[in-house]
């Protein structure tokens, strides 16, 4: 089976950014994403999650260029003031054209 190399970007954000991040991802070129509810701890002591819901964990399989664009966007828009964590990995997918 032929596999295509792509990037998997995983983003954990506080729930308040839900709608925004979904829009951002599609606008920045992701063809889809998957979102799960999560909780966690990090270096910042800020928690707004008490009553408004916890973190959300987004993952999206994208091309290298889109991955770069997403990370740059996160770094500019959200890293300074929000609880956000993001990392990139290599993945192989079956139908590469679905994601670009």
């Amino acid at each position: 089976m032929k596999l295509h190399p792509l990037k998997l970007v995983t983003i954990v954000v506080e729930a308040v950014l839900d709608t925004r991040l979904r829009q951002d991802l599609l606008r920045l070129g992701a063809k889809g994403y998957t979102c799960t509810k999560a909780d966690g701890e990090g270096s910042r002591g800020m928690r707004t999650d008490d009553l408004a819901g916890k973190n959300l964990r987004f993952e999206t399989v994208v091309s290298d260029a889109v991955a770069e664009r997403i990370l740059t966007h996160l770094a500019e828009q959200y890293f300074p003031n929000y609880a956000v964590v993001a990392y990139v990995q290599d993945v192989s997918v079956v139908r590469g054209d679905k994601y670009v």
Partner: protein
Amino acid sequence: MHTLELLQANLLSPMVLAFVLGIFATILRSDLRFPDELYTALSVFLLFAIGLKGGAAMSVSSPGELLLPALASLALGVGTPLWCYAILRYLGRMEVANAAAIAVHYGSVSAVTFIAGQTYLEKIGVKFEGFMPALVALMEVPAIVVGLLIAKWQLGGGNLKQSLHEVLAGKSVVLLVGGLLIGLAAGAHGVEQVRPFFLDPFKGVLTLFLLEMGMAAARRFRDLSRVGAFLLAFGLVMPVLHGLLGVWVGRLIGLSEGGATLLAVLSASASYIAAPAAVRISLPQANPSFYLTASLAITFPFNLTVGVPLYHALSEWIYRGGTP
């Protein structure tokens, strides 16, 4: 003595005791947790039910009665964040973002505090106007606008339009106003059909909800030391001042003793649902430790235990001509 008895009755009600149990559960590091979904379900229930009830009550009153109270609520919602900001910024020497954020919270209102106040009045047999729940919805929004405008004016940036939409179409406004309209349209007779689900069990649901609120408030307790003495004092004194103001305005616009009490409760309460979400989106540089701890771990417990009976006592005192 009479007031003390009522205070004691309030402290020993299952609702307040459940709140205290929640605090203890957290302090004892119990594994008791309410799933988020249960919390959401309970809050949907409470907001919608209070709307329904208010709507049914309003369906038998004339729309004209609502005008003056509505205007007064708006005025309170606009004024409160202004002086709160001034106090926090110039007396408390807080940063612009934090001062504006806290002002938003104390200008907006807490539906659960209102519900607790209403339940208290019902229990001690004091009547109030049916349209009071409509004021909750009215008072939720203006302070958020005013507070964010202040921040925008001082700091630039921020997305006021987005956060306005988020509050106006937010679940608490939709459920409360939706419930009100349904209650109005269905009338007292229509709402009667759903009484065994929405009205009779109301206090019990509130008890369960306050158990969870107690746990949430207590999780904030460890931040109390971080927020400093000024904010602690602010969180205890402002509610009383706003309560007094609420009673006075209530009397001025011709509300009943009970209605004035509830207006006081609303003025005194600080938001911890709509406001935090709006502020976090539009004013992310403000530190949630400050505004959430003040509103959830200081003012809410104060209002729930001491505030509500106090505002009623103030109202009684003022309405009966200043003689206790």
